């Protein structure tokens, strides 16, 4: 499969502290790539660098071969228009209704009429099961509904790359499963390349085609591969401990 995203020798910092050094990995087109690791290991910082919010200290991120951080702002914006991002809390604009939230990207980057935009908005909200809540404000929704609405907004422009920041965090098991199924549908039906930051084991094994494990102590990636293969073949106690919630070797103190 063709490489969609390539990360080369990436160094990341957060508030003047180095969090990651010399990171290298590739994401293939149309796969679900999981960035996993314990809390505070730099997963979200990496995601923010990948989506254009935080510049890296060093290194490169290439989207379809184009160096994302070595081009001017205008060109980067063009690449970013192909992104859909679901933030941890949904990040819906609180002064806008759900339909207005989803409509905003369409108003900006499409030539659709108002009624056509409304049709697309209802379609996207329907995709996440929220078509009946179009006129609700984010404050009137539950956490799970906010995330689904955030996903509808992320999908508004049929993005080529979809990024998820801790999609299952704070959700009940059924909502988390529903979101996982939705991510699989997006890969299968839209052909999108999906990057998911998570430490939820159930999601990692349910949706991950490929994964990388970040480690706070070594400030780098300590494993990369398909989650099932990593668990079956790896001898690294940190990886096995992570993937078995500390129940197998390397666990405990």
């Amino acid at each position: 499969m063709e490489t969609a995203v390539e990360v080369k020798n990436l160094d990341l910092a957060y508030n003047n502290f180095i969090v990651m050094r010399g990171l290298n990995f590739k994401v293939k087109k149309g796969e679900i790539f999981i960035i996993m690791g314990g809390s505070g290991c730099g997963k979200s910082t990496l995601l923010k660098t990948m989506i254009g919010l935080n510049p890296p200290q060093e290194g490169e991120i290439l989207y379809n071969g184009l160096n994302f951080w070595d081009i001017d702002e205008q060109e980067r914006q063009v690449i970013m228009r192909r992104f859909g991002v679901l933030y941890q809390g949904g990040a819906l604009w609180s002064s806008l209704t759900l339909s207005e939230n989803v409509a905003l990207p369409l108003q900006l980057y499409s030539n659709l009429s108002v009624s056509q935009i409304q049709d697309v908005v209802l379609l996207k909200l329907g995709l996440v099961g929220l078509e009946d809540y179009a006129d609700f404000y984010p404050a009137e929704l539950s956490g799970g509904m906010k995330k689904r609405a955030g996903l509808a907004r992320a999908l508004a422009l049929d993005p080529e790359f979809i990024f998820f920041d801790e999609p299952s965090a704070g959700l009940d098991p059924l909502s988390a499963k529903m979101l996982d199924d939705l991510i699989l549908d997006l890969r299968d039906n839209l052909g999108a390349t999906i990057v998911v930051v998570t430490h939820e084991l159930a999601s990692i094994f349910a949706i991950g085609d490929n994964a990388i494990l970040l480690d706070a102590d070594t400030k780098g990636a300590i494993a990369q591969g398909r989650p099932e293969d990593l668990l079956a073949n790896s001898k690294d106690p940190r990886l096995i401990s992570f993937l078995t919630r500390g129940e197998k070797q390397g666990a405990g103190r």
Partner: protein
Amino acid sequence: MPLEKITFDYSKPKTIQLMITGDWQLSAGLPPVNEVLAQLEAHSDIEQIGFVASGDFKWDSAFISFLFKLRAISGQKKIQFGTQGLPAQVEKLLKLIPAQTKKIIPDKITEESFLDKVGGRVISLKDAVLSILDFLGDTFLAFKRFAGGKAFFRKDDFFIIVQKCGADALGLVSLITLLVGVILAFIGAIQLKMFGAQIYIADIVGIAMVRVMGAIMTAVLVSGRTGASFAAELGIMQVNEEIDALKTLGVSPVEFLVMPRVLALVIMMPLLTLYADLMGIIGGFTVSVTVLGLNPVEYFNHTLTAVKLSNLWLGLIHSFVFGVIIAISGCYRGMECERSSVGVGEATTSAVVTSITAIVIATAIITFVCQVIGV
């Protein structure tokens, strides 16, 4: 206290047994280890510490804390520490706490020597100045795009902001500026009564309110009300990643969020100031006519004669400048807010302090310039 509930047994060779009974809970205070330490120093041949818990022994984390300290002391003195005589739960809890802790030093990009700290402060100051200039530049560019009809923002949001910072503030502005007019009239009356020139209260109140007091009082109120609200709104949007979501969508947050707020306040401040001027004059008029017994027609005519158009323009210039200061301070602090509840509080406070300080400085500058050019 628990100390009375330890007894020491030396019946086994080179071993001290701590016989524990009684209340070893947090409610009784944290038990000290001094007594045990004194025993260990008095018996230098001790190679092992043991425990026997019996009777009405009650414990919680206070006892664990005591054991934790004692284990550390035993380690230093190379004395074996045996917890077999204690309840199983105590042993398990103690095992959870590592015997040796290592302090993790963050891997900072820069070393923190004295010169680095001084340099760091200078760089921080430079960064802060650049950040403000950057923000001002972005705001200017957003207005340029707005003038060219290219700015992207929601018109509905703009009108809601206009309503919030304009019409919704009328009650507060009315009350405060009416009272300022009343205060000015009373203060003027005390001095002018001595010369029998109380009618000049109309001049004092009219000129003071229209020239600067109306604008300043309105600015202080709007700063605490609207400036703080701008900082809090944008700060919370920063915390909730709403601003990140705009950026990844390629929408300029300055254009979408800051520009409508600045525009709304710059439009509403002069209008609020005109209203404040009127309320202040009404306050002074009411006191002068009802309490000080001045003729209402004479007061009205004196006000009309005293207040020149130049005073009105000056008041409006003040209000325009104050509007820009309050809106920029509030929005800048909100956009630069740290992603925490403390950060939002700090941004809000900082917005008000910054704008009021800047308002006083701007007033001083405008007054000085007016003095020089003779307005």
